[in-house]
C-alpha cells in the first residue's frame, strides 16, 4: 500500500515578486489551537501598504489507495493538458455550487401531492380572469396607485372582504379548506389566507397597513393647516393618551400638508376623548374636524 499526501495547491502560493525590500518580511506565528497566523504585507494598485492577516489550519489528509492508483497519480500530463501545472487547471476544472441531495422514500409522493394540490390549481384558475381592483375607489388599478389614496379612506373593510369572496378566493367549500392551504408546505399562500383567517376578528390582524389604520382607535383629522407639522399634531393629541402613529399627508413636491391627517391611539378610550375634545379646535387659523377614521361597526 502506498500513501499519498495532499499536493501543494497553487492557490496557496504567494505572489513573491510583489514583495519589495521596504516591506516588513511576512511573519508566520503558530497558535495554541494548532492553527497558523500568516501576516504578510504588500502594496496595492494605488501604492498603499496593505497588511494581510490570515489564519490557516493545515490538515494532512492521508488516503490509502491501491498501488496502481498511486502510480497513476504520478503520471505526467499529455495532450492539451501537457503544459498544465500540477493540480486541477482552473480553465477546465471548477467546483460547482453546493447541491443538497438526500434520498427520500417520499420524494415522489411529495412532488405528486404538490402537482395535484387542488387548492393551488383552483386558485390559479380563479386568478386567471381576476382583475386588479383598488381597495379605495374600486377602480382597475392597484391600491398603491390610486389617485384618491391620500384623500379617501379605504372602502369599507367588510365590503372589500365581500369583494374578495366574489373574486373567488373565498368560495372554497368550507373554512377548514383555507386553513389547509396555509398548512401546505412549499406552496405559496397569499397573506390574506395565511393562518386561520375565517375565525380571525378584524382587530387581531396586526401588521397589515390598513388593518392598523382601521383599528378602532384611529382618528381622521381634516381641515388641517398647510403649515402643520406631524410633531405639532402629536403634541396636541398626546394630551389624551398614548399616540401610536401620526400620519400627516404632505404634497410630495412642495412638502406642504395636504390638509388631513390620521392619528392612531393605543387605547380606544383615549381616542374617544380626543375626538370629542379636538373636534372644532382652532389650530393655525383653521378649525379642525376630527372624526373616527372608520365608523365603529
Amino acid at each position, binding site marked *: 500500500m502506498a500513501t499519498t499526501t495532499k499536493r501543494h495547491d497553487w492557490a496557496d502560493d504567494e505572489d513573491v515578486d510583489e514583495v519589495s525590500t521596504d516591506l516588513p518580511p511576512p511573519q508566520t506565528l503558530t497558535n495554541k489551537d494548532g492553527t497558523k497566523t500568516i501576516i504578510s504585507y504588500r502594496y496595492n494598485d494605488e501604492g498603499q501598504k496593505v497588511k494581510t492577516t490570515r489564519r490557516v489550519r493545515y490538515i494532512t489528509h492521508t488516503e490509502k489507495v491501491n498501488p496502481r492508483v498511486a502510480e497513476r*497519480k504520478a503520471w505526467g500530463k499529455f495532450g492539451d493538458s501537457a503544459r498544465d501545472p500540477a493540480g486541477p487547471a482552473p480553465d477546465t476544472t471548477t467546483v460547482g455550487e453546493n447541491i443538497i441531495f438526500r434520498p427520500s422514500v417520499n420524494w415522489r409522493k411529495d412532488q405528486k401531492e404538490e402537482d395535484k394540490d387542488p387548492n393551488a390549481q383552483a386558485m390559479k384558475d380563479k386568478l386567471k380572469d381576476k382583475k386588479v381592483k383598488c381597495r379605495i375607489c374600486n377602480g382597475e388599478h392597484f391600491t398603491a396607485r390610486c389617485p384618491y389614496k391620500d384623500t379617501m379612506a379605504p372602502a369599507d373593510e367588510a365590503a372589500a372582504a365581500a369583494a374578495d369572496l366574489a373574486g373567488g378566493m373565498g368560495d372554497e367549500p368550507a373554512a377548514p379548506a383555507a386553513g389547509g392551504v396555509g398548512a401546505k408546505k412549499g406552496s405559496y399562500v397569499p397573506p390574506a389566507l395565511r393562518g386561520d383567517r375565517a375565525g380571525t376578528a378584524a382587530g387581531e390582524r396586526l401588521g397589515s397597513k390598513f388593518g392598523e389604520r382601521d383599528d378602532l382607535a384611529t382618528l381622521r383629522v381634516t381641515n388641517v393647516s398647510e403649515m402643520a407639522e406631524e410633531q405639532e399634531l402629536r403634541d396636541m393629541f398626546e394630551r389624551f393618551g398614548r399616540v401610536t402613529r401620526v400620519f400627516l399627508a404632505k404634497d410630495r413636491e412642495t412638502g406642504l400638508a395636504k390638509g388631513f391627517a390620521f392619528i392612531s391611539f393605543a387605547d380606544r378610550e383615549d381616542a374617544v376623548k380626543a375626538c370629542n375634545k379636538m373636534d372644532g379646535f382652532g389650530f393655525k387659523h383653521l378649525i379642525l374636524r376630527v372624526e373616527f377614521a372608520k365608523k365603529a361597526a
Partner: protein
Amino acid sequence: MRPVLLAGHERALTQIRYNLDGDLIFSTAKDQHICAWYAHNGERLGTYHGHVGAIWTVDVDPTSTMIASGSADNTMRLWDVKTGKNLKTWEFPTAVKRVEFNEDGTKLLGVTEKRMGYLSNIVVVDINPDVNAEQSDEKILTIVCDESKATVAGWSYLSKFIIAGHEDGSVSQYDAKNGDLLYNVSVHELNTPVTDLQWSNDRTYFITASKDKTAKLITAKDLEVLKTYVSDTPLNSAAITPKKDFVILGGGQAAMDVTTTSARQGKFEARFYHKIFEDEIGRVRGHFGPLNTVAADPTGKGYASGGEDGYVRVHMFDKGYFDFMYEVERDRQNRL
C-alpha cells in the same frame, strides 16, 4: 455535495466511463478528442487526439492501460492511457456507435451504424493486453443486425454472450463464440430505441435506458425483465450504483426542443431510483441540457454525468446518501 465541473469539451458529451479502480474518468464528446480526468479532484490528465469526427463512445480495459473509442469518422481506435498515443486504428464503412471491452480485456466489440447501404454490424476484434505489442487487424466475429440496427452492445459475464440493444426497442442475446442469435425480446415499446446498456458489477444483469421513458433491469442469461423504472422523460442513459441498491437515470427532452421550454420543465436532472423497490428517491439538478450519459463510480463513492451542455459533473455522495435505507432494509440490518 459540491460537484466538480469538467469543462474539457466544447460540444455535447456522448459517453463517460470510469476505470475499474474508479480513479480515472474518460469522457467523449462530439468535438474530436477524448479527455482523461482524475476522479478525486477533477484534474485533467490529458487528451487523446487523432479522430476526425464526433466521438460517440469510449471504453477502458480492466487494467486501465488502454482505452478504445468509436467515432463518426468510421474508425475505432485503441489508445495508450498513459501517453495518449494512438496504438491502433480499425477502419469501417460507417460510424462506430459503441465500443466495449470484455471482462478480461482480451476482446473488444464495436457497433457500427446502419448507413449508406451498409447494415449495422457488431464486430469483435482480439486485443493483445500488452501496450507495445502489435494489434491484429482481423475481425474474429461479425454479427449482422439485419432486422433492426443495434444501438448499444456489451459483453456478459465470462464473455459468454454479447447483449445488444436495438433501435426497435428490443434486446438480443448472441453467443459470443459464434455469433448465433439466441434470443430477441421486445422489452421496450416498439420503435423506441434503446439508448444505453450498462452492466452490474458481476455482469450477470444489466440496465437499459430507452426513449420510451423507462429503464429496465434485465438478466443476461435469459433476458428476463427484473425491474422497470418509469420516468416522465425520454432517457438517454442509465447506470447501476455499486454499494447501494440504486440506479441512476439520465435524460431530458430532445436537444432540438430545449430552447422552447424552461430549464425546470426540461427535466435535466439525474434521477435516482431504488433498484429493488423501483421508487424514485431523489433527483440531482445542475445540467442545463439533457443528460446524455451517466456513469457510476465502481467504488460507489460518486457518479458523473455528461450533458448536451458540454459539461461533465462529477459528484461525490454525502453521508445522507449512504445512510438512506428503507424501513424494511433497516429492520433486516437490525436483525442480523
